[in-house]
């Protein structure tokens, strides 16, 4: 048994650019072998995966290639609602664990929870800083984080901005699960009231002190743009975190920002992808995942194991390959077109939308 392909713990003092360069140069099959063997090590593996191993008809330690991960089948998300999140962390990480369990935003029922070790948080932060720099967000600026916080990992952006990008950060909180619950219940007036409540807090901060950058959701930013165009025009940039943004929204945002940065990210508590390119004035917005800790594939809606052709639309399949968290084949509730970005070692995704599962046979056109 070897774990030599698994990287040494990351330190805040490590050069983040060197870390990213190293990750992008990683052989995915070798990385995959390291992560799988770490989680299935008989003594130091993760309790969850060692338990699962007994139910599998193959020995996971025989896996040598990334594309063999389909043998695990689609990951059962219920496990992340029922199981102690610590059980997915290898025992080679010293107990008691130091770190936090984070929730998925979730739209229905109990949230999924995963444990992030300090190393995982640093990996995520390094990637986030990398995308800030690539998009042009300067260090040493003041940010307003108007996103979910509390149990939601996106709220950790306050720490990422301050520790790795020398920023000052304000924050307000939003509860995405409450919004979804109101929508499900048809309480649309209450949705509007809650949006107003959030906007009041955002505008309070923007008027109190100079804020260069705003991190928020496309929906909230759209409303802010419509009601307070002066405050948007005064920003140096916005970072949008969410699932979908249309071409019309992108054009409206860049126009309102008047030369300011419109940065974007796609993902959730399991894994993230940074905006790679915007083409056709917003008609194609593509993202690339935090390789190799996160990989994404676009698969057929009727066959999760079949990757679609480049440019074709399908369901997003996410695989988490952190040294301390292994989640193969998560079938996201999003769809996207498969995107091949030159110079990126794995597939990206473009034009994210909520997953639609309806009739899709061309014969149904008439």
């Amino acid at each position, binding site marked *: 048994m070897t774990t030599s392909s698994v990287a040494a713990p990351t330190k805040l003092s490590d050069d983040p650019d060197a870390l990213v360069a190293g990750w992008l140069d990683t052989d995915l099959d070798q990385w995959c072998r390291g992560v799988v063997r770490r989680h299935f090590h008989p003594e130091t593996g993760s309790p969850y995966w060692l338990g699962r191993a007994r139910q599998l008809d193959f020995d996971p330690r025989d896996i040598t290639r990334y594309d063999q991960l389909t043998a695990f089948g689609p990951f059962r998300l219920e496990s992340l609602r029922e199981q102690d999140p610590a059980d997915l962390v290898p025992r080679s990480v010293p107990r008691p664990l130091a770190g936090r369990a984070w929730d998925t935003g979730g739209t229905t029922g109990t949230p999924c929870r995963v444990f992030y070790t300090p190393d995982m948080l640093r990996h995520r932060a390094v990637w986030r800083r990398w995308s800030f720099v690539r998009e042009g967000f300067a260090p040493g600026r003041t940010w307003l984080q108007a996103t979910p916080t509390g149990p939601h990992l996106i709220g950790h952006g306050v720490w990422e901005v301050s520790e790795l990008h020398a920023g000052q950060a304000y924050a307000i909180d939003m509860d995405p699960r409450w919004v979804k619950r109101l929508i499900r219940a048809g309480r649309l007036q209450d949705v509007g009231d809650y949006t107003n409540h959030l906007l009041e807090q955002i505008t309070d901060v923007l008027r109190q002190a100079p804020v260069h950058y705003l991190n928020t959701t496309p929906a909230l930013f759209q409303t802010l743009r419509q009601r307070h165009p002066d405050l948007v025009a005064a920003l140096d940039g916005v970072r949008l975190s969410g699932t979908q943004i249309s071409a019309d929204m992108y054009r409206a945002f860049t126009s309102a920002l008047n030369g300011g940065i419109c940065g974007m990210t796609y993902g959730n508590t399991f894994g993230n992808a940074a905006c790679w390119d915007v083409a056709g004035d917003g008609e194609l917005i593509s993202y690339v995942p935090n390789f190799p800790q996160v990989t994404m594939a676009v698969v057929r809606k009727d066959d999760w194991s079949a990757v679609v052709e480049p440019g074709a639309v399908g369901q997003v399949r996410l695989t988490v390959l952190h040294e301390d968290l292994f989640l193969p084949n998560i079938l996201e509730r999003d769809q996207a077109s498969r995107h091949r970005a030159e110079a990126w070692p794995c597939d990206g995704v473009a034009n994210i939308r909520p997953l639609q599962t*309806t009739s899709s046979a061309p014969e149904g056109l008439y």
Partner: protein
Amino acid sequence: MTLGYLFGGGVGTEPHGLELYHEYPVVRSWYQQVADWTGLTVSQVLEDDLPAAQEERQSVGTVREAALAIGVHDVLAQFGLRPAAIGGLSLGAMTASTLAGALSRQELFEMLAGARDTPELPADAPAQGIALAFAQTADGPGHPGEGRTGIHLAGDFGPTADGKQRILMLAGHAEALTALAAEAPPGTVVPLPGRTIAVHSPLRRHFRDFMAPRVDAMAFSAPQLPLYSCLERKKLSSADDVRDLFQRNSTDPISLVDVYTGMKSEGVELGLVMGPSIPEGILAFPFPVVHIEKPEHVQQALSTAYDLGIDLTGGQVSP
């Protein structure tokens, strides 16, 4: 930020809408109303096998499709969603006209039900059919059957989602379509099994002539919403415009491109596709679309509207 409602054409063979019917009282009462107007039973409208006779089958099928599309509209209306622009293909154009206020729902359904009395063609008339044709995007709506006897361009669905092809509909004599499919590069012309009416072609002239007096007698009025034609790139703004669409609909080719281009010009930023008549994921649209044929899609439409920054506060509490 505005919503556009899109209605597809054609008559499916599989029943749709059962889940919506069972979930929403407003849909159940609506189907009962349709049954009362058409002389059909709710079960015939909703899920029974379609009749075998060609024109009767077409008639009941159109009642089914239009009932579902309007049912979806009514569910969304309960949540306060209203379209800022509206349009559809073929039958969907007539449904859209109705929801735009250009004619009453009762007149629409009585017309659709009345179509069952269209005389069948003589038994020795050439069999008809339709086919899908896949052309190069740059070719525009030119089609592989151009210039061939017995084949007509019946529809342009526009570019596919990946932008690589354009989907057209051909209508005509079944024999000619089969011959064209055999000669064309494999997979580029695909006759649709079970579709025995050469819709949107001159071969439907007898249907148009049979329905013309009824359409002439119907009470149309100017649309109350921006309503976009599928027969040309045009906003229908008068009663005569809508009547003309109803008269020509059966024999003239349709274009989804004309519909969504018009809606885009109206500022539509989210399209809601009513019912299953435009399959999901195949075609390109100039704005995001959500297809609604089941209760969960209603929630998805509301969530997407929120995500795209649409003000939902006009909604009422009636989940």
